[in-house]
């Protein structure tokens, strides 16, 4: 195995251990954090998909489409077929959304920029419209999900949040590690080149269309995981999962995080969730104001998102070292 691959996997392993330990700490201290973190992971997974698209030069404003598809596919599996096993449901949600994304991607992969973004919104709104009309599966009220089980184990009420959080943490780390490995691969570098100059990519013999299809499908899989996870966390799903404001939050998280760091996505999602909870509690109706202000600050001072912070620090250090060296050479 390549050294950088080993390093990425090791980082993933450490992250899992830390997140699991944190889970047990919070279980005995502040249980509500676990529920918030699980939701943040769900959101973060969807945003990770947007970041993958961003690396290929595109933004989707309609990831609610795959988020909702994942939630409904796994939710129906649970309510109609009685499958309550969370890992199984996650796989079902992921595959359903990835498949939908794969099917629609040839249609939208020919478009760029705002047209691509708006087409994704349009698709998610079509899904919303269809679900609202489908009374057989709850219409606009949606439906309630049974408590998930974990490989046959049904945790007691006290431990339900912890169990789901632990699963979410593992899923988040596995998904992030796989995504990171992809970003650092040859194919990932070519995808980044698509963002900079599509013409040249074609003139090097690579297909921009294929990169877009691949990214939209990956984003679909991640969206499906996120939707399934949040369905289980909330215990209830409804067509709002596909509403454009939901999609907007995913874009918010992605822009706040930037596309450099994978873990920044989850940090950014956690910030969103915490600000939302605290503002609701102490300053009702102000969370949009706080988050809006925060986003402005990040865009102005860290245009690469919070994930670019370390890179900035490193660059600054390198620049200073070089300046010192030149000064030394000059004297």
């Amino acid at each position, binding site marked *: 195995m390549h050294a950088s691959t080993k390093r990425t996997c090791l980082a993933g392993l450490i992250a899992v251990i830390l997140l699991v330990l944190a889970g047990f700490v919070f279980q005995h201290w502040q249980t509500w954090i676990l529920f918030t973190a699980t939701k943040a992971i769900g959101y973060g997974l969807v945003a990770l998909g947007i970041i993958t698209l961003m690396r290929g030069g595109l933004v989707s404003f309609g990831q609610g489409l795959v988020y909702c598809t994942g939630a409904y596919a796994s939710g129906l599996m649970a309510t109609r077929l009685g499958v309550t096993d969370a890992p199984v449901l996650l796989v079902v949600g992921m595959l359903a959304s990835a498949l939908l994304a794969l099917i629609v991607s040839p249609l939208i992969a020919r478009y760029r920029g705002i047209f691509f973004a708006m087409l994704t919104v349009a698709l998610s709104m079509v899904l919303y419209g269809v679900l609202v009309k489908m009374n057989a599966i709850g219409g606009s009220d949606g439906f309630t999900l049974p408590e998930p089980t974990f490989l046959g184990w049904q945790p007691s009420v006290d431990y339900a949040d912890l169990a789901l959080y632990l699963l979410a943490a593992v899923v988040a780390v596995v998904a992030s590690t796989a995504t990171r490995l992809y970003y*650092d691969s*040859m*194919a990932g*570098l*070519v995808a*980044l080149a698509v963002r*900079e100059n599509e013409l040249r990519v074609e003139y*090097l013999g690579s297909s921009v269309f294929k990169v877009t299809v691949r990214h939209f499908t990956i984003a679909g899989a991640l969206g499906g995981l996120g939707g399934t996870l949040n369905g289980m966390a909330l215990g209830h799903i409804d067509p709002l999962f596909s509403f454009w404001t939901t999609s907007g939050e995913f874009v918010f998280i992605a822009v706040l995080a930037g596309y450099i760091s994978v873990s920044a996505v989850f940090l950014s999602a956690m910030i969103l969730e915490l600000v939302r909870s605290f503002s609701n509690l102490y300053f009702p109706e102000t969370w949009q104001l706080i988050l809006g202000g925060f986003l402005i600050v990040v865009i102005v001072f860290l245009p690469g998102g919070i994930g670019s912070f370390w890179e900035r620090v490193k660059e600054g250090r390198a620049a200073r070292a070089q300046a010192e060296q030149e000064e030394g050479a000059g004297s």
Partner: protein
Amino acid sequence: MSDAAIILEARDVQKRFGAVVAAQDINIKVGLGEKLSLIGANGAGKTTFMNIVTGYLKPDAGSIHFDGLDVTKLNPRQLTRRGVCRSFQIPQLYEPMTALENLLVAIGTSNQAFSLLRPARDAAVLDQGHALLKRFGLEGYAERKVSELPGGVRKLLDIAMALVRRPKVLLLDEPTSGVSVDEKFPLMETVMEALSEEEVTVIFVEHDMEIVTRYSDRVLAFYQGQVIADDDPGEVLADKAVQKYVTGTAKADAVEEEAGA
């Protein structure tokens, strides 16, 4: 020249942009291994010819044949894969990336089978990138962002990227433009030196007649989308029409005619 040795052929190629004739009755056969230069004033249709050959533009009529196959309907990606590669008048680089990374992208696109599994900074890939930089004398620029690099370096990098696929036909659009006069020769020397390791047919656009004479064994002169001369450099540069419309060495006549029109 026997047909077996023809690598590229344009047959009756026509292209208009509204009222502008960018290619008219273009009939060219290029032999394997030839070093062909294209000359012509601004807007004569040189870049258009390259765009048509590489599938970026579709001709209004006529066809392009490569290695015995009609490739008129293929796109740049398909032609690149078959071995028709190009550089650009304005280098098409990945600006925020380093010179080495630009080459890694080019290498990545040429080994797609394992590109998902292979880290971009795999030792073998890095070696290939460094070797290519070295071949163009660019070792010192490996870790520099290309947006900060001087014009000549950008030109060389653009050409190096086009070479990764080991093309059979390489089209270079003005390899020496955008650098100072005394840099032109060394630049072209580096390019030709680097290409000498390949069995590649080279077609390049050039405005400097000394470079044309030195580095090509055949010259095509373009004027208003037409090829007005096609011969070895000595003959083409001595041609009256070429002197009048291309090189400007018969300026007095041209001015007279314009005044008369």
